């Protein structure tokens, strides 16, 4: 329970950074932190008290393995995060090249 709350706080730090900061790199940093928190939360809900990792061994009998499904899902989620990050960084670098700044308050040609 407390561990879930700590994980949530990590998520909120990332979210705060995305919503509040005005520097493009900082926004990317915030998204990365929030992604970490969600991934960690998924692994946390899968943990089993006194559990072992879900890999069989040829020498000993392993009982009480942790849930393998969230681990597989988190692997996918990590890759998705990497893909998004790469795209965001490429966009950020091109924006810097065109505008000469990372400050989003100065990048205001469009008004949504």
């Amino acid at each position, binding site marked *: 329970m407390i561990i879930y709350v700590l994980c949530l706080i990590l998520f909120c730090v990332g979210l705060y950074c995305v919503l509040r900061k005005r520097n493009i790199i900082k926004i990317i940093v915030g998204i990365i932190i929030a992604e970490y928190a969600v991934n960690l939360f998924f692994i946390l809900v899968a943990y089993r008290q006194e559990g072992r990792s879900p890999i069989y061994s040829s020498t000993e009998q392993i009982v009480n393995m942790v849930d393998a499904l969230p681990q597989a899902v988190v*692997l996918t989620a990590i890759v998705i995060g990497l893909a998004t990050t790469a795209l965001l960084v490429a966009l950020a670098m091109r924006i810097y090249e*065109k505008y*000469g700044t990372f400050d989003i308050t100065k990048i205001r040609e469009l008004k949504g």
Partner: protein
Amino acid sequence: MSKEHEKGMSVIVKTITRLTVGLILLYGIYILTHGHVSPGGGFAGGVIIALSFVHLMLAYGKEVALEKLPKGVTSFFESLGALLFLGIALLGFTGGYFFLNFISKGQPFHLFSAGIIPLCNIAISLKVGAGLFAIFVALVLLKFDSEGKE
């Protein structure tokens, strides 16, 4: 990046890189081929392989690395890996199902076991390694003229 980067880093870095880059590559291949018996797998192996080339590039400059793995080759490998993976999936139709594990499962704990899983690992690592290296190269070659400053 800037000019001193193109020439690479100092002699110490270059020497150590020469010693380690092969080991890193080998480790990546180990990780990917043993993905079904030990932790690791195609994705981690592919990233390690990509990192070994990134390492080479950081130490020696982009000319040396691109000589070893030209850009045309990376994008070809990338598409090839993706097609290979989709091909394995479609081959499952021979057994009647998309993504059927149609090869015999073999003996557990051995390298040649688990049907299509090692093959998928190889396809993914090709794709991931080439793809991530391509992203890195694209971002490094991006020059900054900063048109917007004036």
